[in-house]
């Protein structure tokens, strides 16, 4: 197990380096004018200013040289200040977010984490439950119904589903609004009487003892959470179902029944633990996959997280922001995949022994 983890950890820098190379390759397709955002927030409107910046930050150097400076940053010859440098966390200047890309990501991150946390639990719990239900009632009515539910589920685009729930629960019934907070609540949150600990409003509201704000933040979360969860239920249901069906056909299941165990024990003690092995991986991957899901969901619900930032930046072709964000997201994905593999090894003895 330990060698397995070490081997994976050794591969990590190679993958991460390659990711940065690919991001940089996309970056270098841009004109020097756009790439200037990596180092400066604004190009003065006077003749020669752009040339000066190109000269100063070597934006016309050979690609490997530029790549190196993109990674470690470049010292300003006059002030001695270090500008840029992805490894230092300087992802450049975001025209959309009016700030450093890293800072904008940091500002938007709590909202997205809050959404993902709220979505994650019902998503995995209900998805797995539906899958088990489907498998133990194999080929009966409930299985067929769930099957239809899952096929229809992954045929509905996130944005169509999101707009439909908005149509029903916001425009028509006015139960759950889009956005993140109502105006009155936003004013309180920004005031001095309210301490922001995590900048996740539901958590902060509880810590501040403001149940009204908690409720307001919560009803804003309901629709995006349903949207994210629904689309993943379809997928988790299928994985759990097929994994459970495989297990139910094993000989040791027959043995368990032959011993005279009641069905409930057979399912819970003998089938479920083994059936859940692939589900753990898929569940963890789905959580990482929320990185994809939040882009559209946040955009539809006008929820100010990382995803809606990406879509704003992409739409205004603010490529430095987009690439900075993608770099961040891919690091999360790589780290998450590593975690999933290790987890998989930890719970599945067959992999551990290899």
């Amino acid at each position, binding site marked *: 197990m330990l060698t397995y983890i070490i081997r994976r950890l050794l591969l990590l820098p190679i993958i991460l380096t390659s990711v940065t190379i690919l991001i940089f390759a996309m970056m270098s*397709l841009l004109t020097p004018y756009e790439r200037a955002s990596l180092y400066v927030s604004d190009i003065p409107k006077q003749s020669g200013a752009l040339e000066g910046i190109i000269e100063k930050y070597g934006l016309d150097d050979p690609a490997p040289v530029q790549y190196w400076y993109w990674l470690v940053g470049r010292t300003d010859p006059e002030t001695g200040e270090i500008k840029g440098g992805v490894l230092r966390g300087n992802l450049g200047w975001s025209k959309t977010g009016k700030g450093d890309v890293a800072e904008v990501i940091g500002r938007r991150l709590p909202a997205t984490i809050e959404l993902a946390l709220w979505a994650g639990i019902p998503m995995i719990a209900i998805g797995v439950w539906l899958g088990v239900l489907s498998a133990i009632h194999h080929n009966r009515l409930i299985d067929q119904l769930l099957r239809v539910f899952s096929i229809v589920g992954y045929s509905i685009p*996130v944005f169509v589903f999101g*707009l439909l729930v*908005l*149509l029903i629960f916001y*425009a028509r019934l006015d139960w759950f609004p889009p956005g993140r907070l109502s105006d009155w609540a936003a004013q309180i949150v920004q005031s001095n009487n309210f301490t922001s600990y995590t900048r996740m409003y539901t958590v902060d509201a509880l810590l501040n003892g403001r149940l009204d704000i908690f409720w307001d933040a919560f009803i804003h979360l309901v629709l995006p959470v349903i949207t994210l969860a629904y689309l993943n239920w379809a997928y988790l249901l299928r994985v759990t179902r097929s994994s459970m069906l495989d297990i139910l056909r094993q000989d040791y299941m027959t043995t368990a029944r032959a011993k005279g165990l009641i069905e409930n024990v057979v399912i819970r003690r003998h089938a479920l633990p083994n059936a859940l092995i692939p589900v753990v991986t898929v569940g963890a991957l789905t959580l990482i996959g929320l990185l994809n899901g939040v*882009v559209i969901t946040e955009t539809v619900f006008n929820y100010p997280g990382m995803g809606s930032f990406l879509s704003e930046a*992409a*739409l205004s072709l603010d490529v430095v922001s*987009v690439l900075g964000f993608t770099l961040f997201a891919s690091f999360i994905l790589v780290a998450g995949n590593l975690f999933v593999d290790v987890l998989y090894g930890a719970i599945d003895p067959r992999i551990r022994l290899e």
Partner: protein
Amino acid sequence: MKVVLKLLKNPTSLIGIVLLLTYVIVAILAPAIAPVPQNSRDPYMIPRDGFKTAPGLPSAKHFLGTTEGQYDIFYGIIWGTRTAFRVGIIVTILTLILGLVIGSLAGFYGHWIDELLMRITEIFLAFPFLLAAITLTSVLQAIYGKISAGPLMILTKLLALITFAQGFDQALNPIQMSILTGMMAIIAFGWMTYARVIRSNILSVKEVEYSLAARMVGANDMRILFRHLMPNAVFPVLVMASMDIGSYVLTFAALSFLGLGAQRGYADWGQMISFARNWIPSLAENWHIVVFPGMAIVLFVLAWNLVGDALRDILDPRMRGRGAGL
């Protein structure tokens, strides 16, 4: 033939096939169902009835109503069928070819070529798919018009040739350009699974007797690869790809929804739905701007998924002989 028969016998896949055929007929008959106005320069641009901002409800003149800016929804849905097929099929085929080439080279030559290509595959897998597609689309759109030559432009022109049957000498207009960039981005980040599967299939058929026999009679590498190995390794991947058409259409629709794929007014379902973003508080009255184009996408993707789902069960040997309901 047996597979087709089984597909027709299975009620869910039958629904899928009927739906798909309906879409095919709609796409073919588009000019008859939704006639192109006489002054139109491009049939794919949805005709507008005035320039009023607020969407129009369904009426005698506009069967399914109009979106913001008075684009006719009925026309858009009908001609959007062509866009969906075109984007879905072309993206799938090109992604598949890319995956096949990379995967089969890796599997066939092995050694360092395999090592290199598989590491490259892993790098591409390190990006969340939709994010990567959004990113590459915006990069490509940012540089459009700033570079006129270079390999990238040749690729774009090639894609234009396939997609719009447009010659190399003609300049690309911004509308075409934004569709092409979206497609290129999906292709660039979609091929990895195919490459991996085809590689492992080739590895498993490489050592089979008939491949050695071909080598004995003096066939060269390319002949063995393309005549003997590919046909045996390629079929499962073909099935995989055919099931993915729906998801590529979804991804492209998502790009259009974000404003990155098809441009405003183009007959594309995702683009039509994106208008609804400005009317969320009044969606109760303007339900038609979401429901109709939304239904078009959902049924289209559903049709592919129904067929794909049944196909997978039929072709999966583990499922054989286990009753029809599976």
